[in-house]
């Protein structure tokens, strides 16, 4: 009952004309930018973050959330119609693009839209019930437990996003070190500032995000000399009833899988999609058709994608620890607005929390009634040649970094990170763990120093506290599993080098 009351309160917050407008604007702009090649949710959010600066806190979060799922939908649209994969829509490329080849683009887009709606709805119920409950758990966390949770997050994100624990961990640690730049809060010493005044406050998150994701991606596309063939096919949106009936079971399955995987540390849309796709392959009534362009292959993963995107807000809002790079950006946006996500957030800003929950559902409706029918017009973005698009993207990167502090110095920082991001890209180093490390770095240091202070420099504090001991043992299991996998692959490799060469790469990185 209390839940319904809270949700009603949330809808009251979200259904003001102003907030509805922000929500619609966020969804539309997010979809539009998300469609562009090379711009996934992370870069879309960082590009559009400045738009929200002059908006009051409630509206700003509603718009940001709209941008986030708009970007995700936009991503899957470009994956379905043109097989341009981003991190968040790799799975949509498989069956979705096959459906386009069969001339069923409209059906695929509709399926993706409606499944996202179903996934989002399920996830909101989970979010509304779980977040306050987990918030209670959040109060039990001591400094050592926070450290262990953040470490677990690093391990999981490293593993999920780059497929190789070692690479991802290195990036997370580089991120942590970059987070050290600026004034040390405990002693007031300026660290790694090279005597530059504008580095005293640290490197801007947006500079890193736009450098590593925006600029590096633009240059990568330029290097590839990508010439896009715009999509010109016919789009017939509405499915027939038997087709519609096929969407439902697999979308529901995807929603549940996505909701669960979204909450876990390091979880989030990418892994949820793969899991849902695998589940469809195993349990669907039409499993023999999956991979050849069938409805289930699109529905399940789209629902899981959306559900995981929603439920990944839970750890951020309940415990105050973002579990993936997108959530890290969201956290930065919260802090810019003067709100510290964590166990206290739901109690002290109920209007923001419930308003955001309600607006997520409203955003879903916008996606279905606005974006899905209009998608054929959105697709005309691709008629713009890349040589026109990329100066515009660079311009938005500049405006985005400039308007945070109204400082041109930040553009130089962005340029430096563009170079670093390009280097990382060419060395196959995934930048997502770096973002998470950068956001969590200062928190990790703070909590680590506090834990050490409490235990007088004794590391036992990490094993004697039940929460941190559990989390750390999960980490050690992951490490042991990875090492044995590598050595097993290496041994196999030595026995028959030519055959297994391809297998080793994904297994060990």
């Amino acid at each position, binding site marked *: 009952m209390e839940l319904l009351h809270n949700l009603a309160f949330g809808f009251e917050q979200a259904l003001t004309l102003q907030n509805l407008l922000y929500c619609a604007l966020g969804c539309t702009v997010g979809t539009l930018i998300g469609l562009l090649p090379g711009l996934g949710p992370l870069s879309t959010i960082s590009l559009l973050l400045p738009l929200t600066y002059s908006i009051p806190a409630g509206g700003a979060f509603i718009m940001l959330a709209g941008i986030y799922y708009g970007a995700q939908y936009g991503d899957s649209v470009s994956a379905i119609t043109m097989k341009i994969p981003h991190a968040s829509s790799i799975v949509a490329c498989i069956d979705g693009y096959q459906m386009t080849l069969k001339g069923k683009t409209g059906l695929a887009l509709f399926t993706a839209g409606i499944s996202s709606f179903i996934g989002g709805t399920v996830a909101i119920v989970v979010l509304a019930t779980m977040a306050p409950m987990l918030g209670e758990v959040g109060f039990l966390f001591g400094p050592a437990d926070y450290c262990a949770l953040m470490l677990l997050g690093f391990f999981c994100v490293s593993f999920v996003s780059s497929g190789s624990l070692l690479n991802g961990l290195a990036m997370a640690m580089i991120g942590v070190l970059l987070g050290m730049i600026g004034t040390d809060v405990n002693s007031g*010493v300026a*660290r790694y500032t090279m005597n530059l005044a504008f580095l005293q406050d640290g490197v801007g998150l947006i500079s890193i995000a736009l450098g590593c994701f925006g600029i590096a991606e633009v*240059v990568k596309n330029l290097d590839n000399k990508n010439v896009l063939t715009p999509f010109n096919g016919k789009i017939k949106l509405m499915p027939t009833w038997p087709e519609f009936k096929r969407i439902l079971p697999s979308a529901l399955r995807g929603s549940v899988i996505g909701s669960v995987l979204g909450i876990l540390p390091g979880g989030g849309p990418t892994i949820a999609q793969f899991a849902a796709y695998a589940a469809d392959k195993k349990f669907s009534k039409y499993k023999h058709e999956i991979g050849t362009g069938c409805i289930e292959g699109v529905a399940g993963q789209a629902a899981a994608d959306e559900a995981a995107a929603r439920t990944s807000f839970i750890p951020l809002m309940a415990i105050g620890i973002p579990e993936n790079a997108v959530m890290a950006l969201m956290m930065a946006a919260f802090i810019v607005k003067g709100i510290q996500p964590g166990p206290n957030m739901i109690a002290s800003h109920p209007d923001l929390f419930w308003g955001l929950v309600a607006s997520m559902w409203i955003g879903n409706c916008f996606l279905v009634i606005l974006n899905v029918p209009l998608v054929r017009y959105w697709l005309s973005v691709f008629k713009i040649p890349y040589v026109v698009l990329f100066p*515009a993207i660079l311009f938005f990167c500049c405006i985005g970094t400039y308007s945070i502090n109204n400082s041109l*110095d930040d*553009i130089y920082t962005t340029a430096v990170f563009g170079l670093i991001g390009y280097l990382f890209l060419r060395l196959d180093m995934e930048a997502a763990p770096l973002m998470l490390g950068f956001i969590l770095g200062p928190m990790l240091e703070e909590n680590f120093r506090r834990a050490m202070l409490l235990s007088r420099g004794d590391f036992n504090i990490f094993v004697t506290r039940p929460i941190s001991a559990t989390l750390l043992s999960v980490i050690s299991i992951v490490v042991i599993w990875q090492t044995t996998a590598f050595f097993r692959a290496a041994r196999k490799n030595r026995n028959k080098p030519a055959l297994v060469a391809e297998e080793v790469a994904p297994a*060990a990185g």
Partner: protein
Amino acid sequence: MNSRNFVRGVVIMALALLFGIVALNYKLGTLGRSGAGMFPFMVSCALFVVGLITAVRSFFIERLAVDYDVKNIALVLASLVGFAVISEYLNMILGIVFLVFCSTFAGTSYSVFRNIKISVCLIAIAFAFKNFLGLSLPLY
């Protein structure tokens, strides 16, 4: 050596050394009462180990070549820096024009007329940002 994994290991180790050695200049303190340098130093050590493992491991797995193109990244960076410099000393409208004309050299084709059109559009967007969204851009 032209191996992506090996270069990666070396880059990681270099970064670890850079951050680690600088960290030693700050006060380390003890674990119980750590100074400003303790935590970065610990992370740098761990990072160095990871880099070392990456470099050593590269000898046991398949080699991948490093491919890169200096021209595009250099052009893009130059246009960003030029945009900032021109905006600081002249104004942002000229900065936008420079950004467009410089960065499009990296594209597949170059057309002055098209660049003028892009610049006009972007300047219009900048005015919209300034007047409707309240961003304070030094446009003129």
